[in-house]
């Protein structure tokens, strides 16, 4: 039943990723939810018992450990709801399903620090409520799922009416859609259909048909192979043949996703030789919007961080308190290490799961550990990790790198754990975070227009400027971010910006704002031209 849910989500998870409302490339909602389910299935498959409550327990355990990101953690609550309401039972009926959905909804609200309507939470509320209504008169579990699917679907469609941010971006909530897909997969399975084939997106989500079919193929292929360069580009031409492009790409690269029409095609592939591939693509049409991302580098970093963590556990001298911080990008990682943190390389587009956080905490050289998520999306998983960690684990809720560095600098090894946590928490308000990156979709947010591929400036995650030139976007962004109290601006450069470009931008900033110190440091982060700390 839940493998059907997973199949349904897998089929469309790329779509769910793409619906992320923020115009920055952290579209990982679908991936987070999928990983949660896959881990859940893994754990559940090892349970020999046929008892519903025992299986549900194992599912909850697995989902929790596998969950990453907000959406993953919320989805995991579904299994907590099941494990609670199936308590002690061998089999379950309509009432228990309705109760499980209700419990799950309640757990989800309490798992989220600041519940917002128009999100996955609203969809869960509606699904649970419909399930309760139908359960009293339903004869089968299928009927309950049918009712909750209809309600969830309507709720997803309604999310833009509840949340301005979705409305402005012209999308429905990604997590909500993901939750509906899970229910839909179960419903299809119970009615005897193959969820992997039959799950279709609601028609209010407009998307070229070919894309959804290909997304499935894409996800299957990336499961085994995430190496090479993730290469994306658009191809313009007349009478382009999607089938021919797919076939020719498949000969030359892996993980091929091609979508579009005869005039404009978007291509996503993994290849070891992106330049050769682009060379070939230019024979098919006009190549534009090229984005190449080295995944070997990402994977290597990731693998390397785990090797270091493991080495740490064996050799590191035990300290009274250890700090574990999530970071990404060579320069940023170095800064965290230099100030004594054990670094879990993840973040940005690769959120660690609850289990991975707990593992990293386990390897830290102390029984008292302070964890810095440094990303809003990692915070929920970090908070869940507290409950499964065998150590005294505290989370300081840092939501970005500048906050993380501020908090880490406040850490004093000789101070008691809780005093440290309190002091570190107090620093968060003393630093402002701004970012410069590319918009991955055309949007109008908070009254600012940005076309896909334009440079945008975010102040505390809110888009405040857009433009075509990195330096002028940076200056406009700083203009809004700097207050009379600002003393120091630290610019961590990375993404597509090189050292020289970063130097030019920093010099321009220092000419424009002579009263503020500007410090330019290599961050090495992917995607973001600049991560900026203002204090």
């Amino acid at each position, binding site marked *: 039943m839940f493998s059907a849910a997973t199949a349904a989500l897998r089929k469309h998870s790329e779509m769910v990723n793409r619906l992320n409302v923020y115009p920055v490339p952290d579209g990982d909602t679908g991936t987070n939810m999928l990983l949660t389910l896959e881990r859940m299935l893994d754990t559940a498959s090892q349970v020999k018992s046929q008892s519903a409550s025992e299986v549900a327990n194992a599912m909850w355990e697995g989902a929790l450990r596998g969950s990453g990101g907000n959406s993953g953690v919320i989805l995991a609550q579904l299994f907590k709801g099941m494990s609670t309401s199936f308590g002690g039972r061998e089999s379950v009926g309509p009432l228990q399903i309705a109760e499980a959905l209700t419990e799950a909804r309640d757990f989800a609200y309490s798992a989220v620090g600041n519940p917002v309507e128009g999100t996955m939470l609203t969809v869960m509320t509606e699904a649970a409520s419909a399930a309760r209504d139908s359960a009293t008169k339903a004869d089968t579990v299928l009927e309950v799922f049918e009712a909750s699917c209809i309600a969830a679907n309507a709720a997803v469609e309604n999310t833009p009416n509840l949340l301005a941010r979705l409305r402005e971006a012209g999308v429905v909530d990604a997590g909500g859609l993901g939750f509906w897909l899970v229910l839909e997969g179960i419903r299809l399975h119970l009615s005897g259909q193959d969820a992997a084939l039959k799950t279709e997106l609601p028609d209010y989500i407009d998307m070229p048909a070919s894309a959804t079919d290909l997304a499935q193929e894409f996800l299957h292929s990336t499961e085994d192979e995430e190496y090479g360069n993730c290469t994306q580009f658009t191809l313009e031409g007349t009478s382009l043949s999607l089938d021919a492009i797919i076939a020719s790409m498949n000969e030359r690269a892996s993980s091929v996703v091609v979508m579009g029409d005869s005039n404009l095609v978007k291509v996503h592939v993994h290849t070891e030789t992106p330049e050769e591939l682009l060379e070939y693509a230019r024979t098919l049409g006009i190549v534009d919007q090229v984005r190449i991302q080295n995944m070997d580098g990402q994977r290597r970093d990731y693998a390397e961080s785990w090797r270091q963590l493991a080495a740490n556990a064996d050799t590191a001298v035990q300290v009274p308190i250890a700090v574990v911080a999530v970071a990404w990008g060579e320069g940023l990682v170095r800064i965290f290490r230099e100030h004594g943190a054990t670094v879990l390389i993840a973040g940005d587009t690769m959120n660690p799961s609850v289990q991975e956080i707990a593992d990293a905490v386990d390897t830290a050289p102390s029984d008292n550990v302070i964890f810095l998520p440094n990303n809003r999306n990692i915070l929920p998983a970090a908070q869940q990790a507290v409950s499964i960690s065998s150590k005294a684990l505290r989370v300081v809720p840092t939501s970005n790198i500048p906050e993380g560095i501020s908090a880490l600098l406040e850490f004093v*090894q000789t101070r008691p754990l809780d005093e440290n946590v309190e002091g570190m928490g107090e620093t968060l308000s003393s630093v402002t975070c701004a970012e410069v990156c590319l918009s991955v979709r055309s949007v109008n947010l908070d009254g600012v227009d940005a076309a896909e591929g334009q440079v945008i400036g975010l102040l505390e995650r809110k888009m405040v400027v857009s433009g075509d030139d990195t330096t002028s976007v940076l200056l406009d962004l700083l203009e809004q971010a700097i207050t009379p109290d600002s003393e120091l601006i630290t610019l961590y450069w990375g993404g597509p910006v090189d050292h020289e470009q970063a130097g030019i931008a920093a010099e321009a900033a220092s000419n424009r704002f002579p009263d503020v110190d500007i410090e330019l440091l290599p961050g090495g982060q992917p995607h973001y031209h600049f991560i900026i700390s203002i204090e």
Partner: protein
Amino acid sequence: MTVKIVTDSTADIPSELAQELGIEVVPLKVRFGTEEFLDGIDLSSEEFYQRLVQGPTLPTTSQPSVGEFTEVYQRLGEGSDGIMSIHVSSKLSGTFNSAKQASEQAEVGCPIEVVDTLQASMAVGLIVLAVARAANAGAGMEELAALAEDTSSRSEFFVMLDTLEYLKKGGRVGPAMALIGGILSIKPMIILRDGEVNELAKERTRRKGVARLIRTAHEFGTVDDIAILHSTTPDEAESLASNLSQLLPEGRQPVISRAGSVIGTYSGPGALGIALIRSATT
């Protein structure tokens, strides 16, 4: 006054104040290469900090010899009821040991009490000032020894540095001090604990550092006395002093002192600190 008060130049007591209270200051030595200077006597502060920053080599320091202390004790001992010799932490300098040995071998007709304050700079200075005032008011050796011990136990000293480099090169970084990497610019903040340099905090800007100094001073509750120490920023010291004067009884101002060349060798330029004596809790 029948009990004489001796300290060393690392106490950073402004010279007029030392003269006024009749405090004998034994100088340590600072060497730039082969040139040797007596701290606070042969080399002006201006010249010292200029050399510190611009010179090709960093200075080294050395404690007064046993003989130098012996000479001072013998000179002061004549006709006195006793000598209180109050010094910088024995974990940071050999000065206390020199003084201790001298007190054992000097042929003086009065008792000598050598005190290890486990403090440095104006924190030692404030202890010395309290003991000197009591001595001038006629207190005897026993009372003064108890006062020195008591004020030492209530003394605090914390400093914002511009860089940890000077402290590190001088080998005065305590074992509990965290490593500070060189990538980010940081204002390290230190505090003396059990006679050693410990970490208080790290701040990224001076303004935050000053705010932390003030906050830390307030955390110690009511105080008997305060001193502000700076190495090259007198204006900052002035404004910090006026900010903290509210902690003192009305009409009193914190003592402002400039770090001499020995303390300056380890603090470097741009250091700003607070020494204080907490009020006795009743």
